[in-house]
């Protein structure tokens, strides 16, 4: 009974996350209003029949901005995670496969980078490169690969000692084939889990930086910038300005964490 319940859990989170993704991807069709269209006659309107989630200080429809903003936030998260995964796989893979001095040097460099909080590095880079969604995604990508690299390294070290890899080496299987078909392929369960958690982290980072006013430019709607503007709006009683972006961020992170947690629990089975 308990086992059955555990199996159903990820489906619920998958469906919910797919729904959020679907809504944001189709935001240009589904958004009832142009997200940047100002209407000074309808500023700070509470949720009503016309504006389901209300309007902001410039009379812009909150629902439309939430949908379009989701596209920006999720794009940054997806792009940065793909970039960080590629860097992490290459770095960790080379370190784990070659071992010895190469591994020692690469790991010391990685440890040095890990001692600096990622947020500080992101803040510094963002201060220099501030200005676009792409730059934000790239900054998060090049600062988010540390954990992936460590996981890939440990998986490669574990796998390269296993008999099937040693046999492939003995049979003079080309190096690229050993790296991709044996080591990387069998590391995917672990990489998948860490990528999911990195994705949640990337959403959180975008929201945090934008909330602090140093993320996505305020003119571009994202879940983070919506929370940023909501700080002042809450003081004038516009509770809907902060509540709905906060809720969608919370639900999205919950879904991603739950999916990641489920795969993490089942990770052992994938190595059987």
């Amino acid at each position, binding site marked *: 009974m308990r086992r059955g319940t555990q199996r159903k859990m990820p489906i619920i989170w998958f469906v919910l996350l797919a729904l959020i993704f679907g809504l944001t991807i189709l935001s240009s069709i589904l958004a009832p209003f142009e997200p940047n269209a100002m209407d000074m006659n309808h500023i700070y309107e509470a949720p009503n029949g016309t504006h389901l989630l209300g309007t902001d200080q410039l009379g812009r429809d909150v629902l439309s901005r939430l949908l379009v903003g989701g596209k920006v936030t999720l794009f940054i998260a997806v792009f940065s995670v793909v970039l960080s995964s590629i860097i992490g796989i290459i770095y960790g893979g080379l370190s784990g496969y070659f*071992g*010895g001095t190469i591994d020692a040097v690469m790991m010391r460099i990685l440890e040095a980078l890990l001692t600096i909080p990622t947020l500080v590095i992101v803040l510094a880079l963002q201060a220099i490169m501030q200005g676009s969604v792409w730059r934000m995604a790239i900054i998060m990508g090049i600062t988010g690969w540390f954990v992936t690299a460590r996981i890939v390294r440990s998986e490669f070290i574990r796998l390269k*000692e*296993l*008999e*099937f890899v*040693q*046999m*492939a*080496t*003995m*049979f*003079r*299987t080309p190096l690229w084939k050993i790296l991709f*078909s*044996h080591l990387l*392929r*069998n590391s*995917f369960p672990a990489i998948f889990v860490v990528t999911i958690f990195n994705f949640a982290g990337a959403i959180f980072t975008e929201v945090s930086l934008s909330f602090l006013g140093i993320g996505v430019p305020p003119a571009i709607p994202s879940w983070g910038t919506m929370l940023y503007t909501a700080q002042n709006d809450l003081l004038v009683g516009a509770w809907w300005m902060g509540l709905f972006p906060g809720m969608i961020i919370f639900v999205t992170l919950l879904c991603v964490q739950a999916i990641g947690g489920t795969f993490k629990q089942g990770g052992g089975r*994938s*190595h*059987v």
Partner: protein
Amino acid sequence: MFNIENLTVRINDKYLIKGMTFTVPKGQITAIIGESGSGKSTTISALLGILPAQATLEGTIFFNGRDLIDLSRDERLALRKKHFFTIFQDATNSFSPTLKMKQQLYSLTALRLGHKNEAFLAKIKVILKDLNLSEDVLESYPFELSGGMLQRCMLACALYNEPDVLMADEPTSALDMLHQQEFIKRLKKLHTQLGTTVLLITHDLGVAASIADFILVMKNGEIVERGQVAEIFEQPKHLYTKRLVANHF
């Protein structure tokens, strides 16, 4: 065929093998017996050149007159590919968990020998049938098969490859009695028909007694006794061998 002199393997100050000297004659089955941790598997790893990076290897390993330790990595790989086949102790880890068996068996056999897919399928199906394995094995993933089935798949690879030297590290450990007997029969057949030299590592004295020509007894990284099967089992000299034999029979 193999002439090993003063073979020593250590990791830092810990000796895994201490000054082993022995020969593996061509066309014979040599078994190394001993308790777990006595250095049997390390011996095979040393012969194959797959010791952990932190291990230090000393001594000489002559194979057909060439010292394997002096060979370059590429030369050693070429020699291993041409002459050796190894059945590892852990059959589960002998196959990649994410690839189907057909692809893996192909890589371990036909690809090495340059056979086409059709020829591979025709030959491997006969071998699998001979080992009481159904053709469905080819379309399975390793996790769908039992340890015994995987071990028999490794033997199928060995039978397909017809190597000059077969090194088998505890090849019967995952097999039940029935399949163990079958395995021994096939191994003997390979040895008799093709003259394959076999180096067998086992802690099962029954297996060693039923198949080996010559036996080396290992304890704490050293060979404490050596001799023909009859000598070892009927007139053991070393106290350790006496204890092993007495406990088993």
